[in-house]
């Protein structure tokens, strides 16, 4: 009887812990979204993960799987840590991504151009013949990758991010969808 009652209350305890677990996941996702990692950080992490051995991958996966039952068992402690973390998480932590300063935004769009006009302005001449006679020369593949990605409703814009870069962008509904950079300061 007592064992049954204890089991019942333990079940209630775990059931209350479930929303804490969901809250924890949500908070993590929100933080990742609001404070995106820089491009370099993402590239390094992707590179490191691609080099992980099978054992390291399995260990990481096992740790993640084991973590959830553990959180469920000690959810009151996790909840206190969570509340303290939210309360004392100062505004300093909400730093904007420094790489965002180099992103092409709406205000950097200069003019709409036709691909042919862009190509006509992109001649590169080298007296030693060490540059192919193609639009954007050695960067021609990047230009074609941009054109190949055009979708219905896209417009092609020339853009300049002052002190950072110049190039062409595919714009859909006033949003920059894809860029091709031919000059980086």
């Amino acid at each position, binding site marked *: 009887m007592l064992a049954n009652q204890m089991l019942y209350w333990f079940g209630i305890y775990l059931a209350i812990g479930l929303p804490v677990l969901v809250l924890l996941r949500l908070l993590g996702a929100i933080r990742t979204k609001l404070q995106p990692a820089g491009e370099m950080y993402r590239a390094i992490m992707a590179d490191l993960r691609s*080099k992980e051995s099978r054992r390291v991958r399995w260990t990481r996966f096992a740790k993640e799987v084991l973590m959830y039952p553990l959180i469920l068992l000690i959810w009151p402690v996790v909840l206190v840590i969570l509340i303290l973390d939210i309360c004392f998480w100062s505004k300093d932590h909400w730093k904007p991504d420094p790489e965002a300063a180099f992103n092409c935004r709406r205000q950097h769009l200069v003019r709409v151009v036709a691909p042919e006009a862009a190509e006509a302005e992109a001649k590169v001449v*080298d007296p030693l013949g060490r*540059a192919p006679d193609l639009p954007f020369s050695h960067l021609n593949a990047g230009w074609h990758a941009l054109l190949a990605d055009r979708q219905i409703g896209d417009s092609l814009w020339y853009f300049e991010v002052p002190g950072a870069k110049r190039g062409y962008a595919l714009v859909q509904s006033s949003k920059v969808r894809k860029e091709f950079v031919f000059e980086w300061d």
Partner: protein
Amino acid sequence: MTAQFSEHLIYQGKELTLCSQPLGPFLQFSASTLKFEATCTALWRGYVGTWAIENDRLYLVKLSGNVVTDGQEQEVNLEALFPGYPDGVFAHWFTGELRCPSGALLNYVHGGYESTYEMDTFFRVQRGVVLEERTVVNDQAKPDAPQDYTLAGMTTFGKSQED
């Protein structure tokens, strides 16, 4: 980051140490499928390029890099990145400043290209064309200071045996 191996710049018949990476923008914007792999902590970019300034233009004349194709590591040269241009390519994609330190070491920093030397020669480049050259004398080094570009140490990567 560990102090990095430099690039090389041939200018007026001399080979200078180049502490800039003009190939970086090309690799980022050219849609090249070649992905260089680091072989040690002193070469995170995975390649070393030799550049030349000829007739006020910047050329990449030699490249030695490490890539992984189908799980196999292999060394590649300029031809792999620029097929049909084994002798050099015009670096029209590069706009910025090149820094070539020279002389004896003033202050060693074990990170990136942060160490300082007696002199720095800067080249201002726009779309591959050299617009300006200037030399800055930083200081005079101690008599026993090491000459030329120096790296204190690195860790080389071994291939994992577990996969």
